[in-house]
């Protein structure tokens, strides 16, 4: 073939449609915003019902995770995410979706080799690096305070 991989790579870029950034960013902003607004609503509700700020925050996170897990189980979350993109992926709901969808997917291999070992297939790296980051942050905090 009379074409180098580099030259071919340039034609590939030319012929491959890009993600429509303006549309996807706007949708992500709206979906993410709506999820956070719903979260804020729950936060206010729990506050109104007498929970202190910290407890209301925890209850809000738990509620959102529960809703996302339920929507995933009913095969609705990924339909929403098709439009919401990063707006549905980045909030805590996206994390719940990643764990629950893996659990459902690998149910056919049983509770141990399936659900048990594959549940954190996608969420695993997030957990590993968030724990690592919190350790590093903790060390920096310790060093700066004392």
């Amino acid at each position: 073939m009379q074409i180098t991989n580099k030259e071919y790579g340039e034609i590939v870029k030319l012929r491959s449609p890009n993600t429509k950034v303006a549309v996807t960013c706007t949708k992500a902003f709206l979906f993410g915003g709506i999820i956070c607004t719903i979260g804020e609503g729950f936060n206010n509700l729990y506050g109104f019902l007498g929970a202190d700020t910290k407890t209301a925050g925890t209850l809000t996170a738990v509620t959102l995770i529960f809703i996302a897990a339920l929507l995933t189980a009913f095969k609705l979350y990924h339909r929403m995410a098709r439009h919401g993109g990063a707006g549905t992926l980045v909030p805590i709901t996206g994390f719940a979706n990643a764990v629950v969808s893996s659990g459902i997917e690998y149910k056919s291999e049983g509770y141990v080799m399936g659900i048990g070992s594959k549940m954190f297939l996608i969420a695993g790296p997030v957990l590993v690096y968030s724990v690592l980051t919190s350790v590093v942050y903790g060390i920096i905090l310790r060093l700066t305070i004392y």
Partner: protein
Amino acid sequence: MSLYLSKGTIELQSAPSIKSFAAAVGKKEGEGPLKNSFDYIADDITLGGKSFEKSEGLLQQNALRLALKKGELSESDISFSFAGDLLNQCTGSSYGLREFSFPYIGIYGACSNMAETLALAALFIDNGIGTNAVAITSSHFCAAERQYRFPLNYGGVRTATSQWTVTGAGCAIVAAHDKPPYVKSLTFGSITDMGVKDANNMGAAMAGAAYETISAHLANTGQSIDSFDYIITGDLGEVGSKLLYDLFNRDNIPIKEKHKDCGTMIYDLNQQNVNSGGSGCGCSASVLCGYILQELAQGKMKNVLFTATGALLSPTMTHQGETIPCIAHAVQLTDN
């Protein structure tokens, strides 16, 4: 007797017949533009299987049973079978066909499987080895997703260049020269790596392999694209097809006029949410065994170069940062 022409290309001098063929597909494929061509359309994605891997096996069984029935053949008439699919250990084929007692030859050529199995079956028959040889392959969207990508309910977003794995199986049974369609010649391609790393742009990765094999077949058989009604690729999709035109334009060959791609034929690209088009072994298999062979049998197509394309990628190697090696095999099908 087969005649070796040149690098990869073989002429089948007896021109074996494709005695019988059948295509079984899923619901989404059964709603596409070729819905009237398929022999079986599943109304449930599982086909009653307890896992998607089992469903894929059932899809192959359906295609095989239908092809046997259409050819008025029974299991004992089959001398050899060539089968393969996309799953690890060729699960769809080996588990799907385990209840059949005919000889089984498992192969792997990713989405080029239909051309590869058909070429091997035709070679056996052309050389008088056996009386009926089965070529069968399949893919299943859900089984492929979990092996190559993400869980079905995960809210990841597909890129614009990505393709949709076809839920489908195709089965062709080759026998001695009798009625059309005939297998006239074939070219086994070489592994071609165009340096593409993006596993979500398989069309771009495979276009080079398609170019190489089509060019080789034309040169080795002394034909030009004018000899053909159509040059049909397996699953280049919209992006890969455009790149194929670019590659042939450099040789001043206007292949666009003769080209069709199974990946863009099987779905309505504007309505069915499949981005660049269909992919998977079942894509070219179901379009060949549902539509193309039927057209040839009825004389609506006369001379076709069926070139199934395969991305020989491994998710492990993609994670290691490797580029995607690709392959294409071509089978020339005629009505006389």
